[in-house]
């Protein structure tokens, strides 16, 4: 799965889960201010991404730094790479 495919899956998940207009899913869109997220949406975002990619976001401190959709894309891509390069895989 390349980065573009990861981004597409994330965006599709957000459209399905949070009923967002696909046209609003620009990388610089801020989750709270532009996409209307609240704290509960953050919790469900974690659940949706964990399910889609098998990454552990709930215990991931970097999730707290996520502000924009682009931040979400970058974090998931990073975590996926880390998961794939873990020794013993």
């Amino acid at each position, binding site marked *: 799965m390349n980065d573009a495919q990861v981004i597409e899956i994330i965006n599709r998940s957000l459209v399905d889960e949070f009923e967002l207009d696909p046209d609003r899913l620009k990388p610089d869109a801020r989750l709270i201010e532009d996409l209307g997220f609240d704290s509960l949406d953050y919790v*469900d975002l974690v*659940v949706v991404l964990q399910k889609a990619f098998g990454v552990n976001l709930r215990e991931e401190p970097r999730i707290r730094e996520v502000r924009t959709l682009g931040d979400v894309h970058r974090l998931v891509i990073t975590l996926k790479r880390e998961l794939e390069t873990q020794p013993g895989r």
Partner: protein
Amino acid sequence: MISRRPSIPTRRVVVTGLGAVSPLGTDVPTLWQALVEGRTGVRAWPALAEVRGLHCRVAALVPDVDARGIDRKKRRYMSQMSIFATLAAREALANAGLTDAQVRHERTGVCVGSTVGSTIETEEFFRGMSPGRSIEQLKSTHFFKVMNSSCAANLAQALGISGRAVAPSAACATGTIAVGLGAECIAAGKQDVMICGGADELHPLGIGVFDALEAASRSYNDRPEETPRPFDKDRDGIICGEGAGMVVLESLEHAQLRGARVLGEILGFALTSAPDAIASPSAHAIVQCLTTALAESGLSSDRVDHVNAHATGTIQGDEAECLAIEQVLGRDVPVSSLKGHMGHTMAASGALALIATLLMMRNGLLVPTRNLREPDEVCGRLRLLREVEPLPVTVAMVNSFALGGMNSAVVVSGRLLDE
């Protein structure tokens, strides 16, 4: 003037709004049209074939509803039953002509229940948890769909209720009991307006419960429109359904002050428990329930013009209810059950039956029991309606009885009796 027992609070309670989401359609006019035309909302539900051991393959599901009109941030806490409840409540409030400020007033409350919290969502939770006892798939909003008070809480949030939010639960009698408790709340002066009713969403488990008790219909899987058959000699059990029935209740003074149209008055309500009949009906206990409701109304038995019976189409239940009606009201009162049209909509059924009764009064038409071809011997002693009859109805009784031994009945008039 109606004489009332001194123990009954003095505030009169009227109905001013109706809202219905049922297997027959997603609003009140559609429900009424289908009832008068004798249509059924009962269908084959092919998904039931995937449940091992289940004999019944038929259900009364609500047609697709458009829930997008409910804001996502309210809707994300809702399972289907709360969506049904919200849509029905909105219809009832519009029907009542209440303003948003009146709905949000602290003297306005809700009294709404379901048989259980969302079984669909509960299954989803355990499916996610079971493989490795993990809660990693648990969403933040999940609890709000499975808690017992899910419907009442969600409805209160969606409507902006700041008064009482009550969540009664009494299995199949929930809707009627919610109306009765809401009426008592107004009569006692605790609230001026109450949005009351019941809602449920269907999951195979609900059907399975009746199937296990051998109380679910199973002989009509190949001709679902012919079941359930209340009072009929060939009845073989319940068909489970879903939906929501909501009524707006108000104190008479509140309704008159704002010039509201009065659709009916709640005259009497009984809620009784049958201590030896948790899973089987008891004619003796039903007699007690109906007698209590009638006594509270202050009316004599000959004043009741119609009975909207609970009669779900089970062998024992229909017979017990008919024996009780005969004993309390005699053989001449017209009786019908709406389960043949829309199955047993569980917690919604009592409220939907009350709504249908008020519509019958308003239109001067009594709706018969669908699928009643040849009454059995005991039931046939009553005056069972076989076709739509243009009869004036001033006072009616609506019955709901539940697994768990909770019985309830409401006595209602279609207008103010002293006018």
